């Protein structure tokens, strides 16, 4: 497969459970070689169902997809041999040691022991578990288990790694460490990564491109920067002492796209807030206006999400109980 080819290509992929629950609804997207592609959406949006179809453990109801050039329906064995998977839940066997778990994964890929023994040690070192390799997994912390899952997912040296909610339930420190591993995989090994997340900041920090998915449909795809820029840029809120209208004055300043007056303050949209803000202050000072307040906010993915789905990501999450119920329903449907 050439460097420029699409690593994943999805056309009209759909999954309907029990003839009634449409978890994934005619989605199209492609993932390029060497990028980190993220699926962002609330719980129950269809992220795990999509991953399950791409890693060939769940049959699509309709549509088609190729992963590393292999058709997920017809060449599932080839696809499974060449990808790596780090599932959402902890899948390691608690009764075995970390090293035994990795070797077991290697056996499942048909990697000869002569190779896998050496590679298991390398991977344990990579995820900093060398000191715990002979301890049973039941003694591991959440972060250590995540790292072990990662090591297992890398045992066949995949060109494409699937990560389903890689930092779900992890503390801030462990999450940051996981992000570093993900970035390192891309940088050091040129790996392509497909990940799902419902954390906006994670998608923003890690992904080269994001697809926002809601109710089984992709609502928008783009780089985090493009998506945010698409909203009209940064927002500067400005207050001045005098009650004169300065809309025209500000409109002429570089990068300013829109000026609105609301409750005595000016809401200014700028393509580049950092450059515009000093220019505004300078222009106002020249014209004898005293600035009483000025703030600059950069749009976040939450605003992007709001724009395309009509609700904020936090509203979509709803209550914890609801999330749990939704997750259990989906899990039961998937099984």
């Amino acid at each position: 497969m050439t460097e420029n080819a699409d690593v994943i290509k999805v056309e009209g992929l759909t999954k309907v459970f029990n003839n009634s629950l449409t978890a994934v609804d005619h989605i199209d997207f492609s993932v390029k070689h060497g990028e980190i592609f993220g699926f962002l959406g609330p719980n129950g949006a269809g992220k795990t169902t999509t991953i399950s179809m791409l890693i060939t453990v769940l049959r699509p109801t309709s549509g088609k997809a190729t992963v590393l050039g292999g058709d997920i329906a017809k060449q599932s064995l080839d696809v499974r041999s060449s990808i790596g998977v780090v599932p959402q839940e902890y899948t390691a066997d608690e009764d075995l040691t970390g090293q035994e778990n990795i070797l077991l994964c290697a056996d499942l890929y048909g990697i000869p022991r002569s190779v896998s023994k050496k590679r298991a040690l390398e991977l344990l070192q990579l995820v900093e578990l060398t000191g715990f390799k002979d301890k049973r997994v039941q003694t591991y912390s959440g972060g250590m288990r995540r790292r072990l899952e990662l090591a297992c997912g890398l045992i066949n040296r995949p060109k494409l790694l699937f990560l389903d909610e890689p930092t779900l339930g992890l503390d801030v420190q462990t999450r940051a460490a996981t992000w570093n591993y993900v970035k390192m995989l891309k940088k050091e090994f040129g790996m392509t990564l497909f990940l799902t997340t419902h954390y906006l900041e994670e998608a923003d920090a890690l992904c080269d491109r994001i697809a926002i998915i809601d109710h089984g449909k992709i609502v928008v795809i783009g780089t985090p920067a493009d998506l945010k820029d698409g909203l009209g840029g940064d927002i500067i809120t400005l207050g001045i002492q005098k009650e004169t209208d300065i809309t025209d004055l500000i409109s002429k300043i570089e990068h300013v796209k829109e000026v609105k007056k609301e409750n005595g303050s000016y809401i200014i949209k700028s393509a580049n807030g950092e450059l515009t803000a000093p220019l505004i202050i300078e222009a106002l000072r020249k014209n004898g206006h005293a600035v009483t307040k000025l703030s600059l906010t950069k749009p976040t993915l939450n605003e992007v999400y709001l724009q395309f789905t009509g609700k904020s990501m936090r509203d979509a999450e709803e209550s914890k109980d609801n999330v749990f119920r939704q997750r259990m329903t989906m899990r039961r449907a998937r099984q």
Partner: protein
Amino acid sequence: MTEDKLSKNRFHGLWALTNRDLKKWYQNPIVFVIGIIQPILWLALLGKAMNISSIFSSSSIPALPASLAATLSPQQIQGLGTYFGQMSNTIMSSTFGTTSYFSFMAMGMVAFVTVFTTAFVGISVVFDRRLGFMNKVLSTPVSRSVIITSKVISASIRSVFQAAIVTVIAFLLGLQLGANFTAFSIFGVFAIVFLIGFGLASMFTAITLRTTRMETPQAIFNLVTLPLMFASSAYFPINKMPNWLQAIANVNPISYTIDAVRRLMIFGNGYSQLPLDFAFVGVFAAVVTTICVMLSWRFLNR
């Protein structure tokens, strides 16, 4: 990153998965010890309590009434005593094929311990599903039938081990070996236990393949165990059962397993029936395993 030369063997991962299950068993001392204690209890308590041969011993027969004794000569009385003394053995031999009921039942337990052992496969399948391990395995290039077969093989190996333990305990508690017994007989017992273990483990796996509920394998275990046990020759010979029960016991593969084990170990009347026993259990194992593998293609590829 370099390309791996992955195994093209369709059965790769079979031993790795089997070994994982076995490791979970023998590295867990509690499960291991309980697994051994259970057959000890069956044999030592039930096997010894049901002392059927004592019912027919001359001590169970009251002394002759004085009026009857007066009409008989001392030689005749002595003859009657000898007759009744031998009657116990005659009744036991014609009913159970051996004079020791304990030996009869112990060999039934050898076969039956496979039911207890293999029933746990269902629980282990459900556990693997619930704990996500199954999902992990499904995302690797391991064949679906290998996943299931590994469970079945590990259960069969455990069954053979348990059967060996029961045999040793039975021997220590006074098992009376048959006239035909040779060291070779032991291998015959292991062979048939492995076959029935294979069949039963496939059956329990097939039933629980689709479920994620813990209650299902337990309910099935309760539902299946007792009929399998009582509608077999484990405790009582089939030809002394009512006709309707005979009909069931005669198609119960456990009966054939038990028959083979008894013929090999304690009966003295030859091996003529053995080929039929092995054929019946073998066909049962082959059919059920085939069904189970076909179901695994259907249900594990969702």
